[in-house]
């Protein structure tokens, strides 16, 4: 349903995302994980056509029969909020502070042709669907009268309003309290059509996604079904990431990945991970390609 081929994102001469390819089937839930600066959010924004000024995307991305890249803004905006929608990381600032919540939900429907009266009614239904208590009252509230978790539910209501084919969530629970996080994740898992879920939290991916893409240095370094990738990581970066998030016995040192993520444009040639990889050798100076069927990885010295 969504297919992305050779997606690259660059700012001026710096390539921030390189040659990312993946596909999402109808109803499939795919996780996109990696550290900050790995290019996850840019990948998502590129698909939405919402890259910041001065940042451009190349490659192809198709959602059903619609091209998403290299298409004029006028055509893209008809898809946004109707065929593909997005929930952002920061619920506190994502809503207009001067507009009632109900109007902000209704707006996404009137924009795509729903009559105003019907949109207002449906806005309340949607607020109910994302399990906000007393949806009628919430619709008349302003964003500052709601909690972070409630605002994120409002964002989800906006995203779901036009029954899109694909929902993109960019760290939707990172800014929320742990107790609220879990409810939010369950809700997303329940209501999402096809889902692209971006996070750095491996446990979150494991709980709601079927497949995972691991990004590092603007590239997909490993991809496959969650269980396989998590049980038997092949790329050394994935391995390190999993080791770092595993619970360790009391008193032992927390495993970490040595070094830190280089700034954009300063990743090494060849394998992007080789300056931090304990297994790196001369072979790693050549760029490994993502190979494998189902469970694929880009590494010259894969783990067993």
């Amino acid at each position, binding site marked *: 349903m969504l297919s992305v081929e050779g997606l690259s994102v660059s700012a001026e001469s710096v390539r921030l995302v390189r040659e990312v390819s993946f596909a999402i089937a109808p109803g499939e839930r795919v996780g996109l994980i990696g550290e900050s600066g790995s290019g996850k959010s840019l990948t998502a924004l590129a698909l*939405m056509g*919402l890259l910041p*000024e001065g940042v451009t995307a190349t490659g192809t991305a198709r959602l059903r029969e619609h091209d998403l890249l290299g298409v004029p*803004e*006028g055509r893209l*905006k*008809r*898809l*946004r*909020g*109707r065929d593909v*929608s*997005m929930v*952002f990381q*920061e619920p506190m*600032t*994502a*809503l*207009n*502070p*001067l*507009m009632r919540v109900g109007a902000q939900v209704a*707006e*996404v429907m009137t*924009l*795509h042709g729903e009559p105003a009266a019907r949109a207002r009614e449906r806005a309340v239904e949607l607020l109910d669907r994302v399990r906000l208590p007393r949806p009628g009252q919430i619709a008349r509230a*302003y964003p*500052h009268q709601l909690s972070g978790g409630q605002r994120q539910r409002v*964002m989800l209501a*906006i995203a779901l309003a036009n029954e899109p084919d694909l929902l993109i969530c960019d760290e939707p629970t990172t800014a929320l309290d742990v107790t609220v996080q879990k409810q939010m994740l369950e809700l997303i898992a329940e209501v999402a059509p096809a889902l692209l879920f971006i996070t750095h939290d491996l446990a979150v991916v494991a709980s709601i996604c079927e497949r995972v893409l691991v990004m590092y240095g603007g590239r997909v370094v490993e991809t496959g079904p969650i269980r396989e990738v998590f049980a038997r990581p092949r790329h050394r970066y994935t391995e390190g990431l999993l080791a770092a998030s595993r619970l360790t016995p009391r008193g032992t040192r927390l495993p970490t990945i040595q070094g830190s993520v280089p700034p954009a444009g300063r990743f090494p040639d060849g394998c992007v991970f080789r300056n931090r990889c304990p297994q790196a050798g001369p072979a790693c100076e050549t760029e490994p390609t993502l190979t494998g069927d189902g469970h694929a990885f880009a590494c010259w010295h894969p783990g067993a």
Partner: protein
Amino acid sequence: MILYLVKRLAVLVVSTAVAGVVVFAFMALLPGDPAEIALGVNATPEALEELRRQFGTDRPAAAQFADWFGGLAQGDFGTSYVTSSPIGPQVADRLGVTVTLVLGGMVIALLIAVPLGVFAAVHHRDPLGVAISAASQVGIAIPAFLAGILLVFVFAVQAQALPSGGYVPFTESPGEWLRGLLLPWLSLGLVQGAVLTRYVRSAVLDVMREDYLRTARAKGRGRMGALWRHGLRNASVPVVTVLGLQLATLLIGAVVVERVFVIPGLGDLLLNGVAGRDLLLVQGVVMVLVVAVLLINFVVDVAYAALDPRLRGAR
């Protein structure tokens, strides 16, 4: 919201009273006795005493203040010690002219600043957007009276298209009224417009970085559509603050511009009063100007609450 309004109103009333005390005290502290000014240096002590009794300036200051301030509340500004004519009607006449001048200048400033500021923000990377911000810098450096003199030189002296000064009441001839006010409006409006352009630009630039504009675009709005529907009202909150300050500045600026264009406004009345040592007249005009500034602040506070729901519950 109602509680907020009541509070703001209370603040307005209290600050007006305080302003009354301050204005009165300053005028009372000034050296110079109205009776001496009226009768000159050769007056006999008996005649002075008699006149002071007539003016009421022989009474204690508190009684004089109560008299004056109580009169103000009913629109009675007292009777001039110099001309013996009531001050209230003069002030009322002149106030109308000055308010017309200031509001006209503000409208022109807004007509310039809002489109230019928004344009400069949206095109902040393009040469034209940069040029607008640079030009507005130049505008800030020019005082209104200089702009007035330049405008007179170009439109009245060179082109002879507009009168260089004078004022015709609207009721006598609307056309002449407009022609007479055009240059004064422009000289106030152009300068204030330049200042305001910069504030509008930076307010819009700030708003353009906000997450909720990205949300609006994610819903399917275009760049300009998102800015129009969600950005401008948010950007207007800081602009309203500046607008309030500027109205106060304009009021003061009008005093000078009225001189340049020979317009019988409050500023003109104030300067005449000072020149003729008409203390009670000066006191009245200053009080009106102070109250006008307080009223502007009150309106700005109410405008905040109308614009931003977050402020309605608070304070």
